[in-house]
């Protein structure tokens, strides 16, 4: 059924459940429990990838997240790019292909890059593709270096989820140390989450043949998992990676196969009382000539394939090591029937207990592999003494290399906890924690099984305060290492970072060119910047830098470990926040009506959906807007003013609070009356404008612009809570408690009368800037006489539950008068005609009330209010001010908003800009507003707009108000 690389028995695969899959279009078969990588090796597929830059042939190197060489693109329903083949669980029908090769893996045109390698060293992009600019080259280079593309569509079914979680102890890793820690903490009653990136608990025990308490170590794992499963205070996740460690013990955990079948992935945002990083260790490669040939693998990966998957990745193996851990690999290979031709050990003396594990295998102590031979596949290795001399060629198809072990300190370091270099273990170890975190097991340098178990128990016991439990007997070979950062007597290209094709020569080049800091070396060479983040190669890079510079490892230091530990899909970060759920819109009760009328809806500040205009058949924006404007100016219109920010203020001190907030005096208002005002910040900028009404002695209601409502709310609360905590003022947001239909136009009073109201509407008893409570069309209402259009207006405020009813009645009562609904576009035209300001148009960070011709709003009576002193200081300066004016284009034409004004239209420093330009239905021509230097003194003059491209439009400067300058209409 499969090729001859699968053992007849053993491993954690289910031989009764074969799975069909394809790789590069060819069909293969694997078993339940396989990864794509183990299934490919079982089928004898050695060449699985082409490298990033030189397109060199590559095979599978690792067995887990450390895999630096074989990235695949998954197709079909599982579509995703750049997945290490070692982390893809095999499923029925899986379709994968190699990335980074064209036209095919076996014949890759890009491989000519190898011949040109002399000309494409590290940093060659920076040096070569500068002229005229990088973007000219970007596309073809990205294609040539082409990793897999992002899937064109999201998965067709299922969704992503994020959730928050809390626990007393979060344990990253369910290997021996993690499980021991979880048992210890859980038995003490703590709320425990244990998350492990593998499909199965056990960590290194899945790959190694060890015993705990005299029985197979996996029996102990099964018992531990069963005990944890029975405890209600434990959440145990497999296939779930703890990939981010943020401040205040906030960690990100992504489950790739949650139990819920409708979920693709689930991210837990965990707040943990304490964190134990039991993340294990990752084996380093060794650095010698052509150490990237397919067939050169990490020794631990070889061990995993043999023991866990029942796969022999080769027939004749050589082991190359600088430490004792590879001896168990040799023993496991020999037991599986693989011919182990030699163990090449760079150390001069090999411990006896290691020798005892491999009876009958030749041990070549004090020797080095200087070169791997073969092209698309390993054919043999050259072995020589450390001192050099002639090499002996050993033919083989598998080289299992072990450069020693790096504790997986990624999470530990992400927490900002420090590392130290440990000479005996020749690696970096956790040192001082920066948060409530401890490291356990191999991740803390406990590289033998019993030490790892004890370390996990102790880490948890320190949190519970209990005695550390007894540790079962777990014999393991003592770890002994002599560092070998690179083989210096080597031939051929020696790779430090396989994924990014970074060689020893590249590092030396970077150092020669002055990039001596390890962070600079990383960025200049891109070493450690691939998907694998240099999990197998980074320490060798540091070692290579240290050797070249004559520094100690500690002096070189590590690069910064950053989240994510392994790649995370965007969906898993975003969760359910898709499309409008990410930022919901706000609606008024009239939205359905607007949509039914065919209104063109858009966002008009603070996520409010408002109608822009109500086009009739055949109308565009301009025609519809003109029609709506004419209705307001010559008949009657109505708009929904509900989104305007509205706040009710109650308390004895509201008067003086408002006097402090607004630039003009509010406390002198009589109940029933209102005033328009400006709110400044203390640095003199105009923050907001709005109207303020006094309801009674201690009750007020204010409105803010739609977009600023939330910010002003926070600002008012800040003032009250931090600056005037003793003042008696209570603020209630009532934006959504009052909805309104604002009826405006010369016929507004007639429509109000037709609606039926108990309020006397005559201008004598109900003047402009006052309000009355009463009933309108039988509904309890507060009617306010404000005007944002310059016409007679009645703002009819009702409770939201009455809004639709009111609206329908207004449309019905207004029909004989030709009432029309008015959208934001028409509102804009009407306010520009009146010269009313709009924040964001006429008001920016430079403009003050005097510039706007609103000096009257800056109280002279009040000794102090927000912004007074700052405006004073600014106006004492000699710089010319840009002042608000009206502009009338001559000839009559539209001017784009924001168009600059320059002296005489010449190409000189601007003296202002056009803030708005609209078609006036009153004047039947284009009119606008502008901020212009010394504008107030220039009424009647001609200024000049200079468009991009040099076109000049003369404009006549006028007062800002183009319509009814005395306000007779709005007061009528």
């Amino acid at each position, binding site marked *: 059924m499969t090729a001859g690389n699968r053992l007849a028995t053993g491993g954690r695969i289910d031989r009764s459940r074969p799975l069909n899959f394809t790789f590069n279009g060819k069909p293969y078969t694997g078993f339940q429990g396989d990864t794509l990588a183990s299934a490919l090796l079982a089928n004898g597929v050695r060449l699985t990838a082409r490298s990033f830059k030189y397109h060199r042939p590559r095979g599978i190197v690792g067995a887990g997240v450390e895999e630096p060489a074989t990235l695949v693109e998954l197709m079909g329903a599982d579509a995703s790019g750049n997945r290490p083949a070692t982390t893809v669980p095999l499923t029925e029908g899986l379709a994968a292909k190699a990335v980074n090769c064209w036209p095919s893996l076996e014949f890759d045109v890009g491989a000519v890059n190898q011949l040109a390698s002399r000309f494409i060293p590290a940093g060659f992009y920076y040096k070569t593709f500068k002229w005229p600019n990088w973007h000219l080259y970007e596309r073809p280079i990205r294609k040539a270096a082409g990793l897999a593309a992002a899937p064109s569509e999201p998965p067709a079914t299922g969704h992503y989820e994020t959730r928050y979680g809390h626990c007393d102890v979060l344990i990253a890793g369910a290997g021996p140390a993690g499980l021991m820690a979880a048992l210890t903490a859980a038995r003490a009653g703590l709320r425990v989450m244990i998350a492990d990136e593998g499909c199965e608990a056990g960590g290194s025990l899945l790959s190694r043949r060890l015993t705990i308490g005299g029985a197979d170590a996996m029996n102990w794992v099964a018992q531990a998992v069963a005990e944890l499963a029975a405890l209600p205070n434990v959440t145990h996740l497999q296939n779930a990676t703890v990939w981010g460690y943020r401040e205040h013990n906030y960690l990100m955990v992504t489950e790739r196969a949650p139990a819920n079948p409708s979920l693709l992935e689930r991210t837990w945002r965990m707040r943990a009382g304490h964190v134990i990083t039991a993340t294990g260790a990752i084996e380093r490669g060794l650095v010698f000539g052509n150490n990237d040939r397919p067939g050169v693998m990490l020794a631990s990966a070889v061990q995993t394939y043999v023991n866990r998957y029942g796969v022999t990745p080769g027939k004749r193996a050589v082991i190359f090591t600088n430490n004792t851990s590879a001896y168990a690999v040799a023993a496991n290979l020999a037991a599986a029937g693989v011919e182990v031709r030699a163990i090449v050990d760079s150390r001069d003396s090999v411990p006896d207990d290691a020798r005892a594990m491999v009876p009958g295998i030749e041990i070549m102590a004090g020797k080095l592999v200087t070169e791997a031979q073969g092209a698309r596949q390993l054919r043999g290795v050259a072995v020589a003494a450390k001192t050099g001399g002639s090499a002996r060629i050993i033919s083989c198809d598998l080289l299992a290399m072990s450069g020693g072990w790096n504790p997986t300190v990624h999470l530990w370091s992400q927490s900002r906890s420090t590392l130290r270099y440990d000479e005996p273990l020749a690696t970096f170890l956790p040192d001082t924690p*920066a948060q409530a975190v401890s490291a356990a097991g191999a991740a803390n340098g406990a590289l033998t099984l019993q030490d790892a178990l004890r370390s996990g128990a102790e880490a948890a016991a320190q949190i519970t305060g209990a005695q550390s439990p007894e540790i079962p007997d777990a014999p393991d070979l003592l770890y002994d290492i002599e560092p070998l950062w690179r083989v210096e007597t080597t031939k051929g290209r020696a790779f430090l970072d396989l994924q990014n094709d970074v060689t020893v020569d590249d590092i030396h080049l970077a150092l020669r060119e002055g990039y001596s800091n390890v962070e600079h070396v990383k960025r200049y060479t891109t070493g450690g910047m691939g998907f694998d983040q240099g999990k197998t190669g980074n320490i060798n890079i540091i070692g290579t830098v240290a050797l070249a510079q004559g520094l100690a490892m500690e002096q070189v230091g590590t690069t910064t470990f950053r989240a994510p530990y392994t790649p995370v899909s965007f969906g898993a970060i975003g969760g359910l926040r898709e499309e409008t759920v990410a930022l919901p819109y706000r609606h008024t009760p009239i939205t359905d009506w607007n949509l039914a009328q065919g209104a063109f809806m858009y966002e008009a500040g603070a996520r409010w959906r408002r109608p822009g205009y109500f086009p009739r058949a055949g109308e565009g924006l301009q025609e519809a807007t003109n029609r709506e404007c004419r209705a307001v100016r010559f008949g009657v219109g109505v708009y929904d003013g509900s989104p305007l920010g509205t706040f009710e203020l109650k308390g004895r001190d509201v008067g003086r609070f408002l006097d402090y907030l607004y630039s003009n005096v509010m406390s002198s208002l009589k109940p029933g009356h209102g005033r328009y005002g400006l709110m400044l910040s203390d640095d003199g900028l105009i923050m907001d404008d709005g109207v303020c009404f006094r309801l009674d002695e201690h009750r007020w209601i204010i409105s803010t612009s739609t977009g600023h409502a939330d910010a002003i709310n926070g600002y008012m609360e800040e003032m009250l809570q931090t600056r005037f905590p003793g003042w008696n003022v209570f603020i209630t947001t009532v934006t959504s408690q009052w909805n309104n239909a604002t009826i405006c136009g010369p016929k507004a009073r007639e429509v109000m009368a037709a609606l039926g109201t108990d309020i006397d509407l005559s201008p004598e008893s109900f003047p402009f800037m006052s309000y009355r409570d009463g009933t309108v069309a039988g509904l309890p209402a507060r009617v306010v006489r404000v005007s944002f259009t310059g016409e007679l207006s009645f703002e009819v405020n009702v409770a939201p539950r009455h809004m639709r009813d009111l609206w329908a009645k207004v449309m019905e009562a207004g029909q004989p008068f030709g009432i029309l609904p008015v959208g934001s576009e028409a509102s804009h035209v009407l306010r520009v005609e009146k010269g009313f300001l709009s924040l964001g148009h006429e008001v920016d960070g430079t403009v003050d009330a005097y510039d706007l011709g609103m000096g009257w709003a800056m109280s002279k009576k009040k000794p102090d209010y927000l912004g007074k002193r700052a405006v004073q200081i600014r106006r004492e300066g000699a710089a010319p001010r840009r002042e608000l004016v009206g502009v009338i284009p001559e000839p009559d034409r539209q001017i784009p908003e924001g168009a600059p004004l320059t002296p005489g239209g010449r190409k000189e420093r601007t003296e202002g800009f056009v803030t708005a330009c609209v078609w006036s239905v009153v004047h039947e021509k284009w009119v606008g507003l502008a901020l212009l230097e010394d504008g107030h003194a220039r009424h009647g003059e001609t200024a000049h707009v200079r468009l991009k491209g040099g076109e000049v439009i003369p404009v006549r400067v006028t007062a800002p108000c183009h319509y009814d300058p005395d306000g007779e209409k709005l007061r009528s």
Partner: protein
Amino acid sequence: MMQIPCPFCGPRNESEFSFGGPVKPPRPDPLTVSDEDWTAWLTQVPNPLGPVQEQWWHVRGCGTWLSIWRDTRTHEIVEAPDDGR
């Protein structure tokens, strides 16, 4: 994401809060202060390397404005708000 202690609601995620900036000295009397001192108060915001007192608004919670001392190097909250105020 930081966890910020609210005197009313207890420790809550930073996402419930809106940042209110470092706490400045009390506002000088604008009627008597010199232009220089006024401008300095307006424009110079404390930005130390180390503990800084800053304000947060629990806008998606109880609405309180609170102040904490936060170490800008580590995000450690070295002094929480006083519950009894």
